[in-house]
């Protein structure tokens, strides 16, 4: 299997870059995992970001604690609501990491 790309999203910015990288990495055959934390969890409720959830074979998760801090209480299907443990696992298993 090709090397995994991990994408850590810590800000509510750069969606075009994030989407571009996710799609390009999948097209190149890389497994992709994306974890949102801090302000980055705002993407969980962003309709444009939610389009990315349709890209097959990408794992999405976020920090539930960050969601509470920024006041996001609704869950989005296709995103796993977890903790920094998800982030730690993503970094552990990835060959490369991009931080947005």
């Amino acid at each position: 299997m090709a090397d995994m790309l991990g994408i850590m999203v810590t800000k509510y910015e750069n969606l075009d870059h994030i989407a571009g990288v996710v799609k390009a990495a999948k097209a190149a055959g890389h497994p992709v995992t994306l974890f949102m934390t801090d302000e980055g969890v705002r993407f969980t409720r962003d309709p444009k970001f939610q389009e990315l959830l349709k890209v097959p074979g990408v794992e999405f998760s976020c920090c539930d604690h960050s969601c509470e801090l920024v006041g996001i209480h609704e869950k989005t299907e296709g995103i796993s609501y977890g903790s920094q443990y998800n982030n730690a696992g993503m970094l552990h298993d990835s060959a490369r990491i991009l931080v947005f």
Partner: protein
Amino acid sequence: MSDTKKIAVIVRDRQGEALRVAGGLTLADDTIEVFILDRKLDKNDPEVATPLELVTDIELKVYSNNAENGSTTISLEEMAKKLLEYDFAIPY
């Protein structure tokens, strides 16, 4: 899971969150070290002090190019070179 990784968390403007993430990253048994770049940690802010206490309790190595931070002081040049020893660097 793969072999143990070495990960550097670089603390810049979002100090509390960076320290919280550094503590959390230890959950996969990787080696996590912290680099405080330029700024002095705002230890009077509970949002910084609490995760800093965690980082201290779990004995993460902390480096800074700002001597006021009370951690191992290294120059920016030393920091730049040291960052190349890690599998990943997470600037925060």
